[in-house]
């Protein structure tokens, strides 16, 4: 899966768990929490959606890797490769 596709997939999850947020202009290099009204509970939801929809496990120690869209893509790409996608 390409990094762009992973970023798009993360935005889809965010639009589901934080439906009030405007995600049309998210800067991939800026932490998500600086651009959107997301709290730690929302990040738990992102982790849960990755698990449920994509079979991806993110251990708690790696949560900081989900800070921005860019870091999400960097971190998740090998995991998606391991799932065969």
């Amino acid at each position, binding site marked *: 899966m390409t990094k762009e596709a992973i970023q798009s997939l993360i935005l889809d999850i965010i639009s589901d*768990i934080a*439906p*009030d947020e405007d995600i049309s202009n998210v800067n991939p290099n800026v932490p998500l929490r600086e651009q959107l009204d997301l709290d730690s*509970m929302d990040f738990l939801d992102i982790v*849960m959606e990755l698990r*449920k929809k994509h079979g991806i496990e993110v251990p708690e120690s790696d949560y900081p890797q989900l800070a921005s869209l860019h870091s999400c893509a960097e971190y998740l790409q090998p995991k998606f490769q391991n799932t065969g996608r």
Partner: protein
Amino acid sequence: MNKVSQPSDNHGQRPLQNEPIARPEERGRQEPTDVGDLAQTTRTPLEAIFKRPFHRIVITGVGLTAPNGNTLTEFRANLLAGKAAIQRIDMRYMGPVLAGICDFDATRYQSRKEIRNGTRAGSIAVYCAHEAVKDSQLDWDSVDKSRVGIYVGTTEHGNVETENEIFNISQFNYDTKYWTHHHNPRTVANNPAGEVSINLKITGPHYCIGAACAAGNAGLIQGFQMLQLNEVDVAIAGGVSESVRAFGIFAGFKSQGALAEHPDPNKASRPFDRDRNGIVVSEGGCLYILERLEDAQKRGAPILGEIVGYAINSDAFDTVLPYSERQRECVELALRKAKMQPGDIDIVNTHATSTPQGDTQECIALREVFADTDTCFNNTKSFIGHAMGAAGALELAGNLPSFDDNRVHPTINVENLDPECKLNNLVLNQAIDRPSIRTILNTSFGMLGINSVLIVKKFTP
């Protein structure tokens, strides 16, 4: 069908059994329970209670959502016009069931994220609380939020959320790592009241009063008491229910033979009708603004009524069977607290839920108390089904406008009145006009044998 062994109210329905269920009188209940003895045993404590400084408590706002109305105006108009609102919905695992569903706009007062992360009961409570505050004309920005209390009656809470999560993990081979972290905040027993606190930034006390289907009145009584104790200056009090989203509630009633069925959904809930066959479960909510009279008058508040009497008692008898004697005692206790006679009551809004035995037992109690009076009787569940924890609060609200229009809304869907449910002045199928309506008595009874009664009077300074 043997009526003795048949499901009754208190929602509570026994499974049909081979052996008839013993009636209260067959179970060796404690004597004495007649009026004279009740008076003997309770008069002194009551008088002692009323010796302390006593505040008059008034209703200054109401916010509600019912299957047939999202404002009191709309709700009342439909009650007067005989318009029910029950529909057939698809219930997980069960298929089509009858239910009363509300269509208020939750996004009016909540973000979509709040709605997603919270509960339906929370959304109902937040909607009702905002509407009540608006109706009360309180200058909300200047209200000291630490002096506001939230007291929400609930029949049950957490079934919906738990069922949803079990269904969710069933899609993942019951692996609990897919269980949501939202589960605990959604299912704690204070959830709907807590969602109101967070949404409206209220820092005074908040909690729910679990009292089965007596809960709506119990919420109001709690608010009344906290104002008396000077614990708060404003009480947001009443009841809510999200029970239509829990298959277990429906399946439980169905297993007990107590879930209403009728080809026409709007005729399914038919208290007092000879052919009634059970409860229609509904969602809804109704929260009131209560204040001490002096505070309400100081700010020139609209005063919709005064709470002048109440009572809560327990059957101490059975988990599901209703018990007319304790119901009667509860009504009499409320009357005594209000210093009223039965003939002083203009409208009794009955609890009757359209179960064979529940309606009969309540009518026995009411006939005993209100014999030889002109009191009118009506019922709201025939329109909206049983809104569970919201029922008492909603049903009172539907009658409050009678103080202004002197009309009594009917109970509908009575095609053949059950002779066992005969009451003088039972208002059947058509609203009636009365010369003057000054007092409403509302009954609510629930499982485990909890009874609650509230008496509200037209306000006169």
